[in-house]
């Protein structure tokens, strides 16, 4: 029984009376979800609402010769059958590029394909009907004549001169390329005592949110206004994009995001079918709803992680890491995804490899190529799982080669905890990390020595267990350096508006969004603490561009660190405003007063002076009784954006303990541990649950998940029976620990925690499997996911 692990840390600047910082308070929005009273977009129903279903290309690459609509249009209930060319009159195409990713190029993408479909699943025609079933029925009657074109599916040959160019206007199939050469790599390899060189393959996989992507667009012709109910992570970003491509102003577009059934980065992109749904609402002057079904999700939700990386490490016999080198190739589908682009994942990999270690010699090349598969873009922990897997596998392989313990080689090479601030060879800047303290904590938490002894004993009985580790770094709290400087209208700032109501209670409206991670709890905790009320007195409002301050939303682990800081500052500002009124009412200097538990008190003695309810009554209903010149301002807004550092890097280390059945190739996960450092821990329970959920997504990548395509670009396993996801029975308990190195960039000092689990889990599961199989002489497995078949092959049994 581990309910309510409530361990308040030592408080610093955040040490307010009745502080909620560092406490595992339950999230304020859970009861409606446990009662089945949530409001997901798939639940939304509006008067006159129509449903759209899309006819999707069965070919990976095909010219659309003709679309016959007549039969579909005759189906009872059908409202409209709309082709790409027809919809193009309402919505403009887009191009997913960022100027700070130099040379990154892509081609214009349309809401519905015009003339050519570029992947299996791209929408080629929309059918709008009174019900979704009627729309689907009519889709089957739309007659599309295709001329199949050669499908470019192999990233390895995408840049060959004889391979057809996917977008003629671009000249070649290269979307983006980055090269890096730091230190003296050739010299360092020449001076190495041992070199390990191998190739890693990562399975293309996807987010599989339990609620598929959903949108209801409602164009009101009378108001000339578009209201969009969307399961998104970034309502203000979407407001800007809907406005831009429908030729509207921001004030004509409202994006509402209520409950979202899982996001993980899947719901932070521009999807052609969602843009089409909004355009259809404008065209038809009525609400239109689109909810992706599961097959549509698999062929249109962004994929990620499809990388082939040739990698090399050099070490000395004393364990000193001399150099890292990687060559990354990734195929991202036919378009760079708008507006965040599909170059970020490879760019992150180049930036992150080797970033935990002192080694200054690092060479990298990454090439991002187009192909006729579904698009790839940013999914939870963007690039981290790959960079961590490559780095950490190389480190453990090198350790094995020189006969050194895997923790010892890390101790000898990780950047020392007193070595900050510093920069990685790739240029990433680190404020303060804690690799060594984290590692020491993990060592004792998991009882490493005990597990090694157990492993040795069991091996003699023919039981093969493995222990694997992964140290990692994590990008969180991004500044404008991530997207803004590249020209994308994606804000890195966030705001919070805190208001005292006429009964003395508080509301906070924030630009960040709740995706289930607990952002609303964090906002309530910070405001309750900085303003001074019981948390039950705080109501949180998110996900409404009409009623929240401008903000970036939820991605790259920014909600707590950035949105939380804005809320913290807004609460403080409102406290100042309220104490000014209280001072006038009590004839006391405001600085001698404080607000504690919803009551204005004498700051020094804590004596209760005035309940907030009474202050609100006077301020709102009897302002005539306040002294002349006193105007109560019972609302305050503050914004925050990180300025001192491009990103607030976090770090941590994970360990996996598992058993490989050498007869069947099955892997049984016995235990998983993670120690991470996300700075100030606002809510320990929520941080732990981010870690656990993230770890399991990473385990999915390591053992199960892969979008399988054939050579013609057909996805072979686009359903949940064939695409395996982690289920409860196969997952281990996950133990979490924390080291706290707050960022000095904000008063709260909180960094993000959403990527850490996913960043490290694939690496340490891979290392544990290879540790288990090493005594059997198996070649190290480097081709994720590690299915039983691949394990048996490595053992020479099949």
């Amino acid at each position, binding site marked *: 029984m581990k309910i309510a692990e409530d361990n308040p840390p030592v408080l610093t600047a955040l040490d307010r009376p009745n502080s909620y910082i560092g406490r595992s308070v339950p999230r304020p929005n859970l009861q409606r979800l446990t009662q089945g009273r949530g409001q997901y977009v798939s639940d939304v129903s509006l008067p006159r609402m129509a449903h759209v279903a899309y006819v999707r290309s069965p070919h990976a690459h095909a010219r659309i010769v003709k679309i016959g609509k007549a039969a579909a249009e005759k189906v009872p209930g059908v409202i409209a059958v709309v082709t790409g060319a027809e919809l193009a009159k309402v919505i403009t195409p887009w191009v997913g590029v960022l100027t700070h990713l130099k040379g990154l190029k892509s081609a214009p993408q349309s809401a519905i394909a015009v003339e050519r479909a570029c992947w299996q699943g791209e929408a080629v025609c929309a059918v709008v009907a009174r019900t979704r079933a009627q729309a689907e029925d009519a889709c089957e009657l739309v007659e599309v004549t295709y001329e199949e074109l050669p499908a470019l599916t192999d990233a390895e040959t995408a840049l060959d001169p004889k391979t057809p160019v996917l977008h003629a206007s671009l000249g070649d199939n290269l979307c983006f390329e980055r090269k890096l050469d730091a230190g003296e790599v050739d010299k360092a390899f020449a001076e190495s005592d041992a070199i390990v060189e191998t190739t890693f393959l990562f399975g293309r996989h996807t987010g599989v949110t339990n609620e598929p992507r959903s949108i209801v667009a409602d164009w009101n012709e009378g108001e000339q206004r578009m209201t969009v109910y969307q399961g998104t992570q970034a309502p203000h970003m979407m407001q800007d994009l809907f406005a831009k491509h429908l030729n509207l102003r921001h004030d004509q577009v409202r994006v509402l995001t209520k409950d979202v059934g*899982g996001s993980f980065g899947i719901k932070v992109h521009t999807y052609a079918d969602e843009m089409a749904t909004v355009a259809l609402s404008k065209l038809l002057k009525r609400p239109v709803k689109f909810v992706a079904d599961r097959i549509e999700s698999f062929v249109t939700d962004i994929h990620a992680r499809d990388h082939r990386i040739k990698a090399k490490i050099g070490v000395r016999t004393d364990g000193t890491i001399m150099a890292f080198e990687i060559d990354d190739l990734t195929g991202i589908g036919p378009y760079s995804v708008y507006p965040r682009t599909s170059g970020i994942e490879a760019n992150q990999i180049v930036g992150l490899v080797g970033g935990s270690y002192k080694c200054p010699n690092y060479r990298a090349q990454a090439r991002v190529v187009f192909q006729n598969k579904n698009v790839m873009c940013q999914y939870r922990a963007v690039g981290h799982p790959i960079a961590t897997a490559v780095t950490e596998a190389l480190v453990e392989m090198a350790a094995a080669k020189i006969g050194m313990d895997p923790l010892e080689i890390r101790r000898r090479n990780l950047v020392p905890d007193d070595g900050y601030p510093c920069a990685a060879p790739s240029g990433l800047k680190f404020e303060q990390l804690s690799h060594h303290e984290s590692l020491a904590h993990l060592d004792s938490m998991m009882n490493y020595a005990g597990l090694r002894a157990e492993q040795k004993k069991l091996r003699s009985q023919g039981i093969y267990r493995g222990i694997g580790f992964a140290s990692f770094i994590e990008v969180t709290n991004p500044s404008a350096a991530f997207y803004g400087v590249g020209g994308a209208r994606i804000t890195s700032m966030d705001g919070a508006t805190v208001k005292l109501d006429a009964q003395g209670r508080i509301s906070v409206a924030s630009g960040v969004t709740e995706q289930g991670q607990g952002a609303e709890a964090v906002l309530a905790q910070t405001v309750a603490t900085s303003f001074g009320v019981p948390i039950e007195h705080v109501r949180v409002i998110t996900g409404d561009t009409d009623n929240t301050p401008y903000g970036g939303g939820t991605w790259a682990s920014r909600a707590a660190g950035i949105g939380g800081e804005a809320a913290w500052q807004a609460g403080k500002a409102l406290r100042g405003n309220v104490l000014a009124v209280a001072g006038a009412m009590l004839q006391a200097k405001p600085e001698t007063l404080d607000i504690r538990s919803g009551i204005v008190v004498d700051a020094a003695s804590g004596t209760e002076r005035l309940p907030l309810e009474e202050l609100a009554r006077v301020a709102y209903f009897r302002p005539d009784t306040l002294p002349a010149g006193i105007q109560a301002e019972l609302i305050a807004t503050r914004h925050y954006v990180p300025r001192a550092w491009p990103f607030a890097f976090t770090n941590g280390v994970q360990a996996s303990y598992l058993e490989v059945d050498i007869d069947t190739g099955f892997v049984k996960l016995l235990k998983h541990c993670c120690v991470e450092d996300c700075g100030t821990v606002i809510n320990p329970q929520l941080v732990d649950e981010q870690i656990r959920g993230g770890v399991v997504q990473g385990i999915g990548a390591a053992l199960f998940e892969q979008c399988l395509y054939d050579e013609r670009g057909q996805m072979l396993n686009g359903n949940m029976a064939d695409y395996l996801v982690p289920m409860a029975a196969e997952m281990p308990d996950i133990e979490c620990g924390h080291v706290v190195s707050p960022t000095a960039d904000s008063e709260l000092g909180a960094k993000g925690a959403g990527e850490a689990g996913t960043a490290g889990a694939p690496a340490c599961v891979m290392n544990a499997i290879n540790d288990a199989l090493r005594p059997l002489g198996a070649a190290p497995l480097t081709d994720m996911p590690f299915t039983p078949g691949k394990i048996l092959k490595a053992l020479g049994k099949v």
Partner: protein
Amino acid sequence: MTEVDIALTVNGERIADRVEARKTLVDFLRDDLGLTGSHVGCEHGVCGACTVRVDGEIVRGCLMLAVQCDGAKVETIEGISDSGEIADLQAAFEQRNALQCGFCTPGMIAAAQDLLKQAQENESVPSRDAIREYLSGNYCRCTGYHAIVDAVEAVAQQRADKS
């Protein structure tokens, strides 16, 4: 499209309706009765988000047709929540943060309650492995399951202590 008259009880309410023969139970509950607490995740019986009770047994709302429920007693999350039957389980999920996005939660709670009822009948407390096994037909992408197992385990123990 063939339509069929059905009469059934949903959360204690008597319902008479005419439905397309092809309509699934979960679509009927959500679209025709407005019971949106049952969710549609995969529509092919894998994710468990549509889990409801029919005549006391948990079923996949996406694998059963509405017409098959003619004469049946159907219970959804709205019903078992309002009756108070699962109040302790809901409280444990909330306290333990055994849900994040909450989309799987109604189905997860229905499945967990089924296991807990069996355990009470057998006067036993299920092990963590048994809980994991029983819930292995309910997909959760957010939590990693650990917190869900904690919450169910805690309620199993509480109920055993009470009886």
